[in-house]
């Protein structure tokens, strides 16, 4: 299944890539692949902006505005401020989300 097109904020700075392939390994949606010893984005529209690739690239070659694709979290952040997150965890008052 594919979500909205042309919205994901994932960017690959190819000059920084050293071709280790870790990003390809950690991406749960097959967004990245190796081509000629460098990572390339093969399907940006599959990106869910989880940030796993950015978090595991020691060369800083991947940039993404990491966040949760959750309407409740985004609504909460609009009302109470802060970054949208699954912040209901560990908080017994709020049992409505993830």
């Amino acid at each position, binding site marked *: *299944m*594919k*979500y*909205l*097109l042309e*919205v*994901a*904020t994932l960017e690959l700075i190819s000059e920084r890539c050293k071709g280790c392939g*870790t990003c390809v*390994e*950690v*991406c*749960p*949606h*097959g967004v990245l692949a190796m081509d000629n010893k460098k990572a390339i984005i093969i399907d940006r529209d*599959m*990106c*869910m*902006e*989880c*940030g*796993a690739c950015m*978090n*595991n690239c*020691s060369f800083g070659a991947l940039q993404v*505005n*990491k*966040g*949760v*694709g*959750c*309407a*409740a*979290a*985004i*609504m909460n952040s609009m009302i109470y401020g802060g970054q*949208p*997150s*699954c*912040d209901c*965890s*560990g908080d*017994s008052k709020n*049992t*409505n*989300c*993830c």
Partner: protein
Amino acid sequence: MTRTDKWEHLKCRVSSFRNNYTVIPGLYAIGNPDADSDVIVTANYKYSFDIVRTALKGLNPWVLVLDTKGINVWCAAGKGTFGTEELVKQINITSLKQVVNHKRVIVPQLGAVGVSGYKVSKATGFNVYFGPVRAEDIRSFIETGYKAGSDMRTIQFPIVERIILTPMEINPALKKFPLFALIVFLIFGLQPNGILFKDAFQVGLPFLVLGLVAILSGAFMTPVLLPLIPFRSFAVKGWILGMATTFVVIQTTTILEDENTLLFVLAYIFFPMFSSYWALQFTGSTTYTSMAGVKKEMKIAIPVYIGSLAATAILAILYKLNQWGVL
């Protein structure tokens, strides 16, 4: 796993029971591991831990449980509690270096959102091997020399998984249902000289039925039929299904049969919107929606919801004024 475990797992899927279902963080031996055995990292949500230990039966591994406040790997990784810092901390607390004579820790792939492999390696000397997405594939991952094919690396969202997630969508929606019912009864029962319960039930009840159907349409049917409903936006999918179910209910029953046109229009404005709202909430349960995408949806959906609510309120007022003979 015992029957009690399984019963508890079921409760995790339908209620807030899951918010306090934990194991104590630390190093666990599954079977009889030794210094050469693999170390598998997981969260201290007991459901996650149970799935992992069941999948590893017979492999005699070590299981290193991180303190994620009882949250599963993926959600905790998104929040950062299943993360580099906590993994480094647990490796040190449990003196893992003294327990095993190798330098491998297997972290579930979905933990990569929080765990930065190269940072863990720098801090502890242990190398992070990102394992498969699903615990059931760990065995073959280990047996093939720590290799996972793309089928083990990518996440799907099949119908069974979507259905499993719906009780936790329907449950919170139904919790707000009494409030909805109260508002409906007040609107229909209210008379210049007090509240008339006969009216409240006669017209109110069909609206409660439509409300219930709209919730099910948004929080259950939309998730289940997800890939079959046109358009990518969850709000639009929910609205389409809400429109369809509202139409079916009104056409196939005597609901609203003798009623005013105002109420028809009101029903067709409010209930598809209501369904759309619950469908949009499901974005939080999916495995493929991005923040940028949901924000884009909401930029359009929220003004539409507010507009629909305003239109609903105006129609309700007109209906009442008409009923009271003011108009």
